[in-house]
């Protein structure tokens, strides 16, 4: 575990130097990449480690975004609003987890997918609080200059990503992580061996929600304006899954690697094929699932120096 932590520290330290380039484009890209990293690593807790195909990322993201935005509108300071979003996501994940994690396979996937839709509609209807379909404007943060804001949000996302990674690493090497792996391999056998599967699954689900919720709140503050179809977009869920698949589901570094590669591809495609970019994303997904379902890390395992990556 120490070796992985060292690699991660090196990577994050390198990334932290990005603002030195002075280019706001790279800063924006970097912030998005780090946010994607949080989404992918978070999904990995429930989808990779526990083996439950969750489509709930969009639900947590939107919930976090709106909790943070509404809190700030009501006068709460930005940092506290973000923490509040994290708590809201944590609580929501706990309740939802207890309810949904009894379902298996397809039923769980659909239920988790549908939750985001229900949340979106609820937010849409609560016009007084959330602005409904007209969206919500956030108060402008303390630092006025655009450049300072860009740097600030970059480091905010960096911190969040580092936090999420640390949680992944600690979980993976802990009893929780081991128990989740048992559940993923054979849930009834795990049950018979004395694993409290409900507790472990709910814990994984909560982990999969809390950082995503905070990311949603940070995102809302970053872009200053949110509306329901934007933050509850099912594509957030799909992208999180694709990124984890791309890098290697279940591993610690996989989702992060997947997020980096995915963002790279997305930027390339977006620049060249704007009109058909969801179609190209679809094509990428199809090719990935059919030809590289174990992700990029599985390729690197052929290389001796990368063999021991988790």
């Amino acid at each position, binding site marked *: 575990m120490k070796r992985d932590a060292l690699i991660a520290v090196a990577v994050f330290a390198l990334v932290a130097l990005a603002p030195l380039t002075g280019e706001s484009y790279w800063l924006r890209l970097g912030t998005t990449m780090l946010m994607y990293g949080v989404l992918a690593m978070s999904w990995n807790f429930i989808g990779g480690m526990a083996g439950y195909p969750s489509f709930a990322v969009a639900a947590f993201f939107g919930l976090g975004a709106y909790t943070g935005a509404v809190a700030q509108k009501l006068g709460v300071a930005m940092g506290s609003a973000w923490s509040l979003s994290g708590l809201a996501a944590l609580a929501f994940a706990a309740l939802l987890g207890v309810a949904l994690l009894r379902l298996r396979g397809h039923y769980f996937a659909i239920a988790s997918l549908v939750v985001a839709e229900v949340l979106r509609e609820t937010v849409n209807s609560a016009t007084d609080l959330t602005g409904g379909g007209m969206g919500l404007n956030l108060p402008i943060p303390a630092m006025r200059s655009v450049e300072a804001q860009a740097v600030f949000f970059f480091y905010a996302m960096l911190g969040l990503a580092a936090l999420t990674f640390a949680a992944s690493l600690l979980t993976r090497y802990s009893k929780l992580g081991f128990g989740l792996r*048992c559940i993923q*391999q054979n849930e009834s056998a795990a*049950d*018979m*061996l*004395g*694993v409290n*599967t409900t507790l472990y699954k709910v814990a994984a689900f909560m982990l999969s929600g809390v950082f995503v919720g905070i990311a949603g709140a940070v995102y809302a503050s970053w872009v200053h304006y949110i509306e329901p179809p934007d933050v509850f977009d099912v594509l957030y869920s799909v992208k999180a899954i694709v990124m984890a698949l791309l890098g290697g589901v279940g591993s610690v570094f996989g989702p992060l690697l997947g997020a980096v590669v995915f963002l790279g591809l997305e930027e390339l495609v977006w620049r060249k094929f704007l009109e058909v970019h969801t179609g190209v994303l679809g094509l990428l997904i199809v090719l990935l699932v059919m030809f590289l379902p174990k992700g990029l890390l599985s390729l690197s395992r052929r290389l001796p120096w990368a063999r021991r990556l988790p």
Partner: protein
Amino acid sequence: MSGPLLELAGVTRRFGGLRAVADVTLSVPEGEVIGLIGPNGAGKTTLVNAIAGVHTATSGTVRFAGEDITRLAPWKVARRGIARTFQIVQPFPEMTVLENVAAAAMFAGARAYGREAKTEAREHLRFVGLADIADRPAASLTLAMRKRLELAKALAMRPRLLLLDEVNAGLNASEVDAALALIRGIAARGVTVLIIEHLMKVVLSLCSRIVVLHHGVLIAQGDPQAIIRDSRVVQAYLGRRYAAGAEGEHG
């Protein structure tokens, strides 16, 4: 301790309209090796499931070491000291043999994480004879080895009661003999064993008592030699014709 280790009182388990286990009352003292036999579909596995918590008895109670465990979830039952093996083995396929056993030690057995669990796991693997393949993925094992892995996992749970469900199914004669020796070793350690079996030689050589289930009903129990000649038992397995013959032979 006073009182039997396992006590079943009027245990019934229904699935819709079907009574898979009907009003079974049984008392197992600590240290006994008891055999559970009966034709296919008699409800033996269902009974074991009811004890282990996989199914909850529709009526009746299951008491373990004096405690009512009828409604306990499987993982809680496991932690109380009851281990069971599956007829169709259930390993963690992509995890190594060692990790499989360590998991059992970790969650139901000694509960220690990490090195301690792995050390204990190695001991159990040595006992069942799988020590030299500890680092292979469980999915790569042959059936006989998987059965031994199941046994090692069950032992790592440090059970007071071990429920073995057809642990010899699919094994050839020499593999069965090896399994027999292992089970004898386990019983010698003081573990109470309830074994579901089809092979009479196993039951006769291991068990001090046999219990017979037929259509979910406990139709006979007692000394192994007497039970296999009991006309009710023969009738259950082979039909009335043979029962009459058996009676005539020894009646």
